């Protein structure tokens, strides 16, 4: 393969799909403005302007804290999930999950894409994904390990619950969600940082963060 993999369809992200973050939020879920725990999967879209190919740099807008997050995306084929890709799901830090996070999640460049789509059968099928651990390093320093065994909805359940109301088409991507750190936050990045997301069986997703240059 001579060029890096890129999404060909809509990329969906999943909120609150790790047990730790869900448990941290649980006491507040019935308070305003949420008023009840989420029933259906809470999804968002990463638009095409966010796509940053593996090895490329991501511009950091000035003045707002930006967090990185390791996640795995399921890539749909003609007959179900074809493979999986590592992603660095970048966002401006936001405390409220009430309104859709367009201005936090859809900033130019804010989805770092892993270099390859690994065929699902090489990962032991959907059930095999639960054995994966995603490692996140900033400038070579380990910051977070995310175990896919700790999902609220595992890959098969999430797919079924999403497909109940919308069809994932060939080329679409469903990211399984990202975990928070023990204190509820996500690792922050600064201009000059290089972030590497890795997992056994995958070439790592490496992206450098640079200050935004406004022409």
């Amino acid at each position, binding site marked *: 393969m001579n060029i890096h993999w890129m*999404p060909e369809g809509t990329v969906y992200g999943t909120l609150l799909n790790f047990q730790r973050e869900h448990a941290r939020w649980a006491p507040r879920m019935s308070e305003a403005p949420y008023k009840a725990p989420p029933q*259906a999967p809470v999804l968002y879209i990463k638009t*095409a302007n966010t796509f940053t190919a593996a090895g490329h740099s991501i511009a950091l807008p000035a003045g707002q804290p930006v967090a990185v997050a390791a996640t795995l995306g399921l890539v749909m084929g003609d007959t179900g999930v074809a493979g999986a890709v590592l992603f660095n799901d970048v966002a401006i830090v936001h405390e409220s999950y*009430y309104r859709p996070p367009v201005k936090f999640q859809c900033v130019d460049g804010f989805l770092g894409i892993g270099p390859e789509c690994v065929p699902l059968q090489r990962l032991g099928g959907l059930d095999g994904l639960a054995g994966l651990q995603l490692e996140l390093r900033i400038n070579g320093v380990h910051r977070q390990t995310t175990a896919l065994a700790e999902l609220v909805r595992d890959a098969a359940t999430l797919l079924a619950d999403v497909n109940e109301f919308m069809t994932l088409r060939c080329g679409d991507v469903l990211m399984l969600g990202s975990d928070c750190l023990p204190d509820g936050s996500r690792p922050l990045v600064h201009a000059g940082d290089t972030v590497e997301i890795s997992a056994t069986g995958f070439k790592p997703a490496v992206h450098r963060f640079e200050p935004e240059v*406004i022409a």
Partner: protein
Amino acid sequence: MKHARIAWAGAVHDAVEVDGQLELRTPALKGRRVDFDEVVWLPPLAPNPPTRPRTVIALGLNYADHAKELAFKAPDEPLAFLKGEASLTGHNGFTVRPAGVQHMHYECELAVVIGRTAKRVKRADALDFVAGYTVANDYAIRDYLENWYRPNLRVKNRDTCTPLGPWRVDAADVPDPMNLALQTTVNGKVTQQGSTRDMIFDVPTLIEYFSAFMTLQPGDLILTGTPDGVVDCQPGDVIVTSIEGIGDLVNTITSSEPA
């Protein structure tokens, strides 16, 4: 000029409206005219390049009267959400009402089709980045509203639930997009009326707002919200969402069970 994308005689074609007919642009059949009722209408958009899925932005609460109707105060910045291209369908299509729901309503919206790459565009220049306009019907199923990234995708991103068309009208033919009458009829009865002049955030403001942080590309869409007057729709209802000078988008509600 009014552009359409249609399926006819075994292939998909670009066409334009000429004298009440569709004139094909396909090279082998160029100039051939077919009647409106001979074709299947697709969303009036060119396909995107393979690694650039279309960005579909939609607005909530962007008309003062609709914001009031829904018992929210008008937002101080645009309330935006996103849709996947898979939710789009064409003119004269069917939209599925799920079994057992209590409140499914249409939303007649002016849809902006971006014409060239838009990054940090100023409001005064914004309309130069518009290729044209079409009509969107941004259905919502309110039973599924949850207060997590609201309006959530289960309400707003369902298959068949975003009819678009019939025409993409060139921006040059729409001298004042901010003064167009909107109307929806259900089985011929007028249920929704408004004007694009009552948008809280007008089209130039929206393009400036979004392009400040996200680069928009040709073919991307902004659905600009709906005015007051949304009502429940049942299987069999024929919904016509119309915008002055842009088009009359016809859609029929169907049930999720096979007939």
